[in-house]
């Protein structure tokens, strides 16, 4: 019966390239009227890129392919174009103004105003109406900041309804919601469906997909792998996971013979709370170890708490009320400040090299020595030539491609920027090197080089901890893998026994049950 209906949205042959990367290749997606359509895939599979193409963030002309909406070809060049057409996207990070009220947020940019003067009576009346539709029992004058994340999601949907939404896109809507709020949101989607509004649900939580989705499109490496119809065939989670990760491992990773020695770093019962919300328990009783010459991977989805764990370990650079015990080389270590953590032998290479890694306006030489200026200075006076030699040594060792060590780091490619950050931390002489998403935003060739550097460091007797959202990468370079979800380590396995299915299953099985 549904097969006869014309799709409300059809994306045909969408191809989107970034310099050096094919983000999307010939992707097809069709959404039927009044259906809930799940889009699933690993991190980096291209889900977000596809939605950005659809919503006009990447304007028409920057991609190949065609978008048909309500039977006509559409060429969106801005987000407001797609919103006018009735396609509204709700991002993972909500776009609400925290210190404005619900009503003010709902009508932001579409105020109920005459000649610039707001009709507050009308605004409150309509806001109340919309809130009733989404099932939110709050006064429209309540400030957003006083609402929980679940209720904020509902406000976002109310805002979308006000804009006469025809196709609602939700990007990981339940990632920060508890089970009750998630269920509420999912039943709201089903209610909207009954009113003829289609939704695209982007999520990692396959149990939710199984519960509400009419059809499922699976993306992998920027391609559509499969579209499954839950009404015509029995679809199992296994089937979806296989399609999500089913990729062959080729020799994208340099070979390595691991020589693993004694334990260098040991962490026991590590607990961390959110830096602003003291009651949000982010890292729960994590215990962890890394040995000499070992590459330890930490797998998990975005938001699992891996970065928070690593940064809290590195001199409490993140979080508050941190507790737990750290042992380095068998001795209790004080890692309560960054200088102390560095003195204890830790180094943390950030996932966000532009914000936390580099002084972008400065050149390579100055960035390389920043974490160990005393290593090129005596009595506080920098030895310029010594510094230059150090910078040139790392430039050569790590094959940083640049016009010279005086090149400003902002002008380097992602891979070379990453090598500069790595150089900085190598020069600080650590025993344990924590690499957070070391290959994010780096092209394939540079990735291989980074892997080779990681191997060389492990061979030199350092303990390497790699946090990565790309499971094949972890399987390719690490010796042992921890799996993290919702702030806990939910599995640990030697890489020999690990597989993407096993990791994904460990994550899927660990979602917290309702409290």
């Amino acid at each position, binding site marked *: 019966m549904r097969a006869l209906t014309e799709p409300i949205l059809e994306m045909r042959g969408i191809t989107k390239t970034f310099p050096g990367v094919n983000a999307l290749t010939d992707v097809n997606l069709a959404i039927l009227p009044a259906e809930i359509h799940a889009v699933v895939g690993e991190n980096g599979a291209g889900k977000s890129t596809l939605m950005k193409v659809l919503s006009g963030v990447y304007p028409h002309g920057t991609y190949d392919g065609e978008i048909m909406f309500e039977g006509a070809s559409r060429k969106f060049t801005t987000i407001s174009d797609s919103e006018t057409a009735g396609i509204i996207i709700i991002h993972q990070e909500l776009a609400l103004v925290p210190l404005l009220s619900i009503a003010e947020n709902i009508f932001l940019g579409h105020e109920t105003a005459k000649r610039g003067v707001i009709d507050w009576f009308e605004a409150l009346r309509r806001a109340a109406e919309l809130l009733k539709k989404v099932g939110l029992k709050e006064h429209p004058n309540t400030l957003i900041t006083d609402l929980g994340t679940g209720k904020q999601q509902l406000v976002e949907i109310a805002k979308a309804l006000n804009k006469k939404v025809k196709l609602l896109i939700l990007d990981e809507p339940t990632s920060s919601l508890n089970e009750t709020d998630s269920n509420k949101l999912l039943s709201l989607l089903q209610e909207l469906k009954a009113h003829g509004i289609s939704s695209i649900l982007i999520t990692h939580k396959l149990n939710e997909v199984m519960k509400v989705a009419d059809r499922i499109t699976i993306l992998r490496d920027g391609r559509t792998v499969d579209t499954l119809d839950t009404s015509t065939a029995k679809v199992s989670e296994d089937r979806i996971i296989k399609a999500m990760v089913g990729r062959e491992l080729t020799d994208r990773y340099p070979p390595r013979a691991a020589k693993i020695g004694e334990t260098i770093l040991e962490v026991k019962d590590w607990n961390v709370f959110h830096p602003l919300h003291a009651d949000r328990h982010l890292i729960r009783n994590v215990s962890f170890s890394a040995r000499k010459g070992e590459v330890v991977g930490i797998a998990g989805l975005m938001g699992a708490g891996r970065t928070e764990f690593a940064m809290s370990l*590195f*001199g409490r*650079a993140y979080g508050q009320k941190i507790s737990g015990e750290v042992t380095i080389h068998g001795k209790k270590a004080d890692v309560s400040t*960054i*200088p102390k*953590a*560095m003195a204890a032998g830790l180094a*943390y290479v*950030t996932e966000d090299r532009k*914000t*936390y*890694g*580099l*002084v*972008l*306006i*400065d050149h390579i030489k*100055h960035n390389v020595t*920043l*974490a160990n*200026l*005393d290593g090129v*200075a005596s009595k*506080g*006076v*920098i030895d*310029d*030539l010594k510094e*230059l030699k150090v910078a040139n040594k790392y430039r050569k060792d790590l094959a940083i491609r640049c016009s010279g060590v005086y090149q400003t780091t902002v002008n380097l490619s992602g891979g070379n920027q990453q090598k500069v950050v790595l150089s*900085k931390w190598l020069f*600080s002489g650590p025993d344990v090197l924590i690499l957070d998403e070391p290959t994010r935003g780096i092209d394939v060739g540079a990735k291989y080089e980074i892997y080779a550097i990681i191997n060389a460091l492990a061979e030199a007797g350092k303990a390497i901890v790699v946090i990565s959202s790309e499971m094949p990468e972890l399987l390719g370079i690490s010796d042992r893998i921890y799996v993290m979800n919702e702030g806990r380590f939910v599995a640990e396995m030697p890489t020999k026994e690990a597989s993407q299915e096993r990791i994904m299953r460990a994550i899927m099985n660990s979602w917290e049950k309702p409290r």
Partner: protein
Amino acid sequence: MSEITAQSEAKPDILRFVKAHIRDYALLLSLLAIMIFFQFTTNGTLFMPVNMTNIILQNSYIVIMALGMLLIIVAGHIDLSVGSVSGFIGAVAAVMMVSWKLDPFLSVIVCLLLGAAIGGLQGFFVAYHKIPAFIVTLAGMLIFKGLALTVLGGASVGPFPREFQLLSSGFIPDLFSVGLFNVTAMVIGTLVTAIIIYFNYRKRLNQQAHGLAEEPDVIFYGRNILIAIAFLGFSFLMARYKGLPNVLIVMFALIALFVFVTTNTTMGRRIYAMGGNEKATKLSGIDTEKLTFLIFVIMGALAALAGLIFAARLNVATPKAGLGFELDVIAACFIGGAATTGGVGKVIGAVIGAFIMGVMNNGMSIMGIGIDWQQVIKGAVLMLAVFLDVYYKNKAR
């Protein structure tokens, strides 16, 4: 690269080098152009020995505060209180020396420490409580303006003891008097010139030994010859009046110190890194809070020194002393190429910026331009300088 290609590329190298460093020279050339302009419009008064001495004396306190302000701006902050603090310290100095008849030397030490403490207090709130420096120092500006009035009881206090006046009105005594020409000044000037050129030359040799000399020979020698001409010429002018003012020596020593700290020490490097990216710097194990605190302490001490010099120059502490100094100081840094976003700026730039303002003040006053239009012109120059800086930075991208 082989010798032959290196030589055949010699000519474009010079052009390329000049192009790459044009902004470094543009500022100095602007100052020179402004001086020559006023030399004509004032019928040759500007370069007269007595007037050059005056320009130094009139601007020394602005230059001294600009040194500290540059650190603050490079670190990504601002200090609006320096004018009030310098006025307040001048008032305290007057009370100590004139009313209480305390030893001038002791008073100066106490005043400098008090200035450092004031800077430290403000720095404490900025560094450890993350209150924007704009707010903290705006409060400080009001507080110390008020306290200066209170300390002086609304009246002017003076005159100062003679020893103290020498800080501003004294000159290095001439050891071998030859009529009207101050030989000591010329000797010191020549020595300083020789030392600067010696260090430049040594650095050059060192660079060449490691194959790192970027600067073409022509530019290197030209630059040093110009330095020699400027320094010797300046010393000659000074020598023809009363010689080298004490303040000039203090100022020159501080400039040299700050150039050294910003370019050659780990502390200087850390300040620039912090201004460029505080998060990355902190994550590199640098105590950014302590560093911020320290910068404000230095600024406080320099504001105190400036206040003392100003009070000694007027030979009286008035409640209005220091009024609006902060604007000249901040303007000097921005004219000198510092960036509001932090991480960028040079000590020499700030010094030249201060003298651009100073020469304009002096030249316009001699020309008889009213204080009203002087303000308008100075404002326009500040706007133009920053606009050109930003414009060419964007264009370079």
